[in-house]
């Protein structure tokens, strides 16, 4: 039997506002001492009341625009009731029927294919505290850290329109990219500020109806694991369906040690969250003027940037996409273009080659390193002027990233300037004199001997010779 995966994604993203969603506590809890970013509101103490963070609302509405959602003129918060020790009030302030944005789409690319994935809604809620289990004085206890409690959390729900793990990964990455372009979250999967929950089920090829079950995947902290978990789940479900059964509706977690999904919680009985409007927060009414102003604050987004780079510089689409993955990288490129008067193509080659290779090796981003556009421009200019060889330039580049010095500083410090032709002529003469056997071989037709002689020359000049010039000078002398 042939099955087609039906995949939808729920993505939670913590917004990078300074304060929490409903109180003044700092939302920057990562690495903070437990329970130091708390107050009566986020601890759910008796009598405490929420006050909505306006900036967080603007953030989620901006994402709504970026995802081509319809602006929602009226919206409200609701209480979602459930019991869990990390939820101090016994309910989470979330949004039920009037989210801040709904009905949009996200364009993703896999290989050469472009596909629109529907966005059901984006809404705002508060994050929960964090539980950890420990043994203290021989007693097994559960500790609760409420620093995360009340951090603004945005949930983006897609339509179940993805058909492969690759598409799901492309969707998540694109969403992360847009969120970062908007500057509304660092959307870091490892830190937990972006969490992906794919819903996976299968239907027979040709079936139009959605399957009558759905598996929700949790505990995924990287795109790679998301891809693996979905692929594992597709295989697992095929086997169950092939045996004539229907997979058990449940939540499954990704077990990264054993590369498999494991059952976490049966979801056969759907929770009754008893939603009702949050009486402590008046509902919202936005006008067109407000939305117009908000829309004007939205920066150029990845797809627009790619198109503009293609239009303005002679680079390939693949290169443009690669550069625009990270807004800072694209900015770096354009800044370099401004300073460096040569071909943008050459900059792109350096960025996609040397720079990205190095960044990928160290798992860093352009922001993590000390490199100014002017530094790269100067380096490129010096190679254009034949002041250094390409090979030298690569070494200089590496040192430049390490210590932040300029290309000219490094070159003079390390005495890397190309030696003059006159000096080089002398060196080639010495090489010819000292390597008579090789010279004889060359004259007898063994052309490889020339490479040996070039190598010897480079050795004597410590690599500071222009290779093309060395070759030319040697040939001139050998063939005269």
């Amino acid at each position, binding site marked *: 039997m042939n099955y087609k995966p039906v995949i939808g994604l729920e993505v939670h993203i913590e917004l990078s506002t300074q304060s929490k969603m409903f109180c003044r506590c700092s939302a920057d809890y990562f690495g903070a001492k437990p329970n130091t970013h708390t107050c*009566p509101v986020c601890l759910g103490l008796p009598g*405490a*009341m929420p006050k909505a963070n306006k900036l967080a609302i603007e953030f989620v509405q901006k994402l709504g625009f970026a995802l081509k959602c319809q602006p929602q003129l009226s919206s409200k918060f609701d209480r979602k*009731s459930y019991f869990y020790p990390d939820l101090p009030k016994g309910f989470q302030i979330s949004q039920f029927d009037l989210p801040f944005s709904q009905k949009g789409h996200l364009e993703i690319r896999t290989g050469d294919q472009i596909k629109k994935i529907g966005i059901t809604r984006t809404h705002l809620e508060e994050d929960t505290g964090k539980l950890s289990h420990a043994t203290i004085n021989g007693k097994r206890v559960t500790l*609760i850290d409420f620093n995360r409690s009340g951090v603004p959390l945005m949930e983006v729900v897609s339509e179940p329109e993805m058909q492969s793990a690759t598409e799901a990964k492309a969707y998540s990455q694109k969403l992360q990219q847009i969120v970062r372009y908007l500057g509304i979250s660092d959307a870091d999967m490892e830190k937990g500020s972006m969490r992906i929950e794919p819903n996976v089920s299968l239907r027979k090829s040709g079936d139009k109806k959605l399957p009558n079950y759905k598996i929700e995947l949790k505990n995924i902290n990287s795109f790679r694991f998301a891809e693996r978990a979905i692929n594992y789940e597709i295989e697992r479900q095929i086997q169950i369906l092939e045996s004539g059964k229907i997979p058990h509706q449940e939540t499954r977690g990704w077990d990264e040690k054993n590369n498999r999904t494991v059952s976490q919680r049966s979801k056969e009985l759907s929770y009754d969250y*008893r*939603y009702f409007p949050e009486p402590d927060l008046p509902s919202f009414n936005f006008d067109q003027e407000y939305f117009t102003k908000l829309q004007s604050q939205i920066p150029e987004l990845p797809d627009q940037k790619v198109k503009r780079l293609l239009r303005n510089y002679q680079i390939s689409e693949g290169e443009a996409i690669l550069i625009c993955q990270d807004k800072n990288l694209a900015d770096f490129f354009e800044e370099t273009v401004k300073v460096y008067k040569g071909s943008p193509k050459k900059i792109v080659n350096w960025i996609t080659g040397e720079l990205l290779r190095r960044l990928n090796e160290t798992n860093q981003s352009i922001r993590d390193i000390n490199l100014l556009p002017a530094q790269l421009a100067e380096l490129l200019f010096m190679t254009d002027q034949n002041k250094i060889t390409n090979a030298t330039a690569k070494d200089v580049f590496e040192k430049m990233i390490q210590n932040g010095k300029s290309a000219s500083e490094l070159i003079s410090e390390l005495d890397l300037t190309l030696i003059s032709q006159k000096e080089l002529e002398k060196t080639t003469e010495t090489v010819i004199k000292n390597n008579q056997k090789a010279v004889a071989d060359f004259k007898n037709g063994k052309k490889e001997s020339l490479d040996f002689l070039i190598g010897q020359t480079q050795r004597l000049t410590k690599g500071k010779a222009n290779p093309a010039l060395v070759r030319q000078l040697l040939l001139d002398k050998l063939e005269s």
Partner: protein
Amino acid sequence: MIDVTTLTLKEVSTLLSKKQIKAQELNGSFLDRAHKLNKKLNSFIAITDDVAIKQAKKVDELIADNQKLNPLAGIPIAFKDLFSTKGIRTTAGSKVLENYVPVYDATSVTRLKDVSAVIIGKTNLDAWGHGSSGENSDFGPTLNPYDLTRVPGGSSSGSAVAVASGACLAATGTDTGGSIRLPAAFCNLIGLKPTYGRVSRYGIIAMASSLDSIGHLTKTVYDNALVLNVTAGVDEFDSTTSTQKFEDYTKDIEKGVQGLRIGLPKEYFEKLDPKIKDSVISAVKTLAKLGATVIDDSLPHTEYGVSTYYIIQPSEVSSNLARYDSIRFGFGREKFGPEAKRRIILGTYTLSAGYYDAYYLKAMKVRRLIRQDFEKVFKKVDVLILPTSPTLPFNLGEKVDDPLTMYLSDIFTVPINLAGVPSLNVPCGFINNLPIGMQIVGPDFSEKLLYQVGYAYEQETKWYQNKPKL
């Protein structure tokens, strides 16, 4: 020497500012009386001697320094035990919070502290504010000082009795369905349920958030206005507070009722003790004599008030009580009393999937109709006058086993909470030596007008001078 505990807040305030009495001495007298009477009346869950003496001493220093002070400076005030008081145990009248000490002050507490009012104690109440008699307290019932065999009304039972018995000069309360006005009526006091959003709810243990109004009880109308002057106003911690401006509520309080249009909605004069009806009608006649015009009127959706209220209120209660899980503070859920459990179960049911539309959503629609009744009527009249309670203060134990009958004690007060408008209970006489109250109800943010009407009537009748014999 005069007994300060028999005076009004305004009178005591004058003595203080004229340096005829020291705040410490004054508060000492009230503390003594509070201790002495508490054994009999059980109006306090805690009497905060240390806090009060310390605050009073500070006030004496300020007065000695000739600082300009608010009239409430040095005045002993009691707080219903739903108001979070930093460092002072706050129980909500429930054993669940028997050991809970807040780390912060409710906004109202902060505001009263800021003008140097003295916290004399935390008052008894029906646990979580659930009740009309005070009998649902886990700390024992409070008794009516006018007749110790009768209830003082609830849920702000302790606050009412503390003021009526002269243990303090003002006490705060919360009114979700009548919890300030009913005890005010049963104890011969002025009780204000302000417009929803006039006074901050922040820090006050929530009962039903869309209905809870934060007010207070005093002996006189003027005293009441003095307290509202401090507690009213927008609060950045409570998003439902209004930015609507207000001026000194005591200003023009003597304006009178000449030309005022008073509405009498017929629905409120049908199902009540005929003697209470007579008292209220007689009070209206007094106001007519003072120059008001009386107009018969109607609030047609009144009959749906109690049933609407008993959907919305338990729904919100069930949600607000969810946090009492004993994980971070307090004791476990097994300590909830029968009334809280009843409301949790009711509210959980009415919010459940499949029932939400039929109950909660429907009730919210009816609530809108009830509000519209008031909006319409206030196009024709300036204020409404209604009875506060359909019955006289009832006997202890009389309704405690019959929740439905108990719920009907609030038949004349809950529609006002559903509408969100302000209402002032003003004493309007005695029957068999038991106090009776009437409500003066006005449109949103008409507290000033309510005080003017109440003051005019009070000056004619001076029921507040009729003190309990203890």
